[in-house]
């Protein structure tokens, strides 16, 4: 059984690597097939033809596409994505800073989403059928339908324009360097309140809705009635029987959500001008910085796969029966 389990995990990882490889190949071909020459953007017309040709060669664009592809794949195995056209640095070192920000930012956001979603769902369930429950359910549907960019703009309008409380963009103030440690933390905090709300609000609504519905569905099943008849207290039943069952489908959603968040919260980052993966990817796409585009895509796909795998493992931790699903 144990051996089967590890074997299944290995198989899963192998197929994920295949998927990732296909993804990178797909994007590589797409980028190379696109009309237009990326080196044109970085060449000034005053440059002498020999020098221009040198730049062109330094981009590796003079070779045929299949040769470019093979050298790209060969480099990939050593963790080298090439040199970013725009930043003139290795792609890995460009991505590093942006990825660190995204990792911290989206981890905090996911924790907020899960915690608040759980807390609200629990509160609503406790007040089942009452006014609070109904208003929470209704507002979760509404909040879920509101696009992130409208949430962000409404928040900016209320808190930055009208009340003048919070900054509209960036992650630190101009006078950041003069501050001591605690003031710096505070500065980050003030800058990230609005983006955090923008990013989290839809997720809170989703988790709330799922949990709330699951609570009702499971509470109506006969084993709960049986437990009630056995004299267990409501609290015990909720904690040990309803909750573990209700949380399960949530974990895979959280896994997908986290993977998407690690790829960068595109809209939120654009509105608030945050230095995250989403905005890096978009700016790389717009400036035709091909090595960076492929690097970002690779990282995004990798994160997606890792977080899904982690979600599956956590799910197995909750319910051992799921090992069977994984193996077959």
């Amino acid at each position: 059984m144990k051996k089967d389990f590890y074997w299944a995990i290995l198989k899963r990882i192998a197929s994920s690597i295949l998927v990732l490889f296909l993804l990178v190949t797909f994007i590589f071909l797409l980028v190379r097939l696109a009309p237009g020459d990326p080196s044109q953007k970085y060449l000034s017309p005053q440059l002498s033809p020999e020098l221009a040709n040198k730049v062109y060669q330094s981009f590796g664009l003079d070779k045929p596409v299949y040769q470019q592809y093979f050298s790209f794949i060969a480099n990939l195995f050593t963790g080298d994505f090439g040199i970013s056209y725009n930043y003139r640095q290795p792609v890995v070192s460009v991505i590093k800073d942006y990825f660190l920000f995204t990792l911290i930012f989206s981890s905090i956001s996911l924790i907020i989403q899960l915690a608040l979603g759980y807390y609200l769902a629990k509160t609503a369930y406790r007040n089942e059928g009452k006014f609070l429950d109904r208003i929470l359910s209704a507002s979760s549907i509404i909040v879920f339908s509101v696009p992130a960019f409208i949430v962000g703009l409404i928040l900016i309008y209320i808190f930055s324009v009208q009340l003048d409380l919070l900054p509209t963009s960036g992650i630190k103030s101009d006078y950041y360097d003069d501050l001591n440690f605690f003031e710096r933390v505070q500065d980050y905090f003030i800058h990230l309140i609005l983006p955090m709300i923008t990013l989290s609000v839809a997720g809170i609504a989703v988790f709330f809705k799922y949990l709330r519905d699951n609570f009702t569905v499971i509470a109506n099943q006969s084993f709960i009635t049986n437990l009630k008849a056995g004299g267990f207290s409501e609290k015990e039943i909720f904690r040990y029987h309803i909750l573990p069952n209700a949380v399960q489908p949530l974990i895979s959603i959280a896994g997908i959500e986290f993977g998407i968040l690690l790829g960068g919260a595109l809209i939120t980052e654009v509105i608030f001008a945050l230095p995250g993966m989403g905005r890096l990817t978009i700016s790389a796409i717009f400036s035709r910085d091909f090595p960076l585009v492929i690097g970002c895509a690779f990282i995004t796909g990798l994160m997606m796969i890792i977080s899904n795998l982690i979600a599956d493992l956590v799910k197995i931790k909750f319910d051992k029966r799921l090992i069977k699903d994984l193996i077959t």
Partner: protein
Amino acid sequence: MLNKIKIWHFIVAVTGLIIILRFGYIIDLLTVYYLFFQTLFAGKENINSFITFPFIDNFISLCLIFLFPIAIMGSTSAKKKLSSQLNFSNIFIILLLVSFVFAPIITKQHPDFQKNISVTKLLPPFSSVNYILLNEINKVESVQENKLKDLIDSKIPKSYNDKIIFIDSSSFDATFKYYQSGVLSVIDINKLVTENDKPFIGTKLFVLGTDEFGRDVFTRIVYGCRISLIVGLGAVFVSFFLGIILAFIASQIGGLLRIIFNRITDLFLAFPSIFLVVLILALFGSNILSVIIVLGFSGWMSLYKIASSEMISLKQKEYFLTAEQIGLKKLRLLIREVLPVIIVPVIVNLIFQLSNVILAESALSYLGLGTGSEYSSWGSMIESGQEYITQSWWLIFIPGITLIITLLSINEAGRKFGQKINPTIG
């Protein structure tokens, strides 16, 4: 009282209201098209030059605004189909469809119409502006074609209009003086349209205000609904087609092909599709057709999954085997035997897909990648309004709220439909 109103009552009431409110414009249009057909049947040449997109657009709306209520009231089956109760989402979806079809009749001007920006820019909702009209200089000719041309020019709104001048304030004695944001201009009275020997000064109401170029926000919202719906329906159709066809091929051939298709589906699902969409649109250029195709291609996975799982269970059913044995062609098999069975879960998925696509389109327009520059779209309105957030809230909030209500009512409709089919869903 309210729950006795049915959907078809509401549709007829709305179209009737439009006819009453825009009666003058409809009469104008009728005269234009009467004259047009007169010239057409008289066999005059270069009639083609009159046929432009707004011309056809107006004609279709004009026909439909009379045909629509009559057709609904006339047929019992239509009444029966549209006899469910009104609710919030129904009302809004009907209003969307009405503004989609009747956009040229509902609005009073071209969506790109702008004039005298210094006076009309960034006006708050419900503000009105005075205007004066220059009189026609050359109305000597009375050749039929020129008459038609003049009529079309004067009646059907265009993106420019030389005759109208928006003003802040005015005074007149021998000459007419008017101010446009502090700049004084003088004009001869003879050049103006007059009323009782005084220059005619009209007021124009901007119901939802104007944007930074002095364009009417209401008009742009109504026309923006067209973009959202065209892109939404088009993309949903593309993904429907793709998903069903791929699932059918996979279920018919099976084996290795199925595994490959499933892998590809996983590949697409593993990657946040917004990046792929942005990548393709940024590299290959974005116009309305490419947006539809790319959004359609990015949404076929969920449909494929639903359709292929249904088709596998269908393959063992006896009636399906019989149909295969009789020797029905593949296409016929798909349309006659497969589609009717899987259509119900597919439609629920498609409705949610529609709201996803509308959201994606506005997000793309917000990023500057949609159809924005050519046509007015809600996302691009929000994007351009963002710069003026400190002074004009309506540029963001009005398109934003419209978008939210649209998404909400489509989601609600999908949920209701799903509930009807499968009552166990909460």
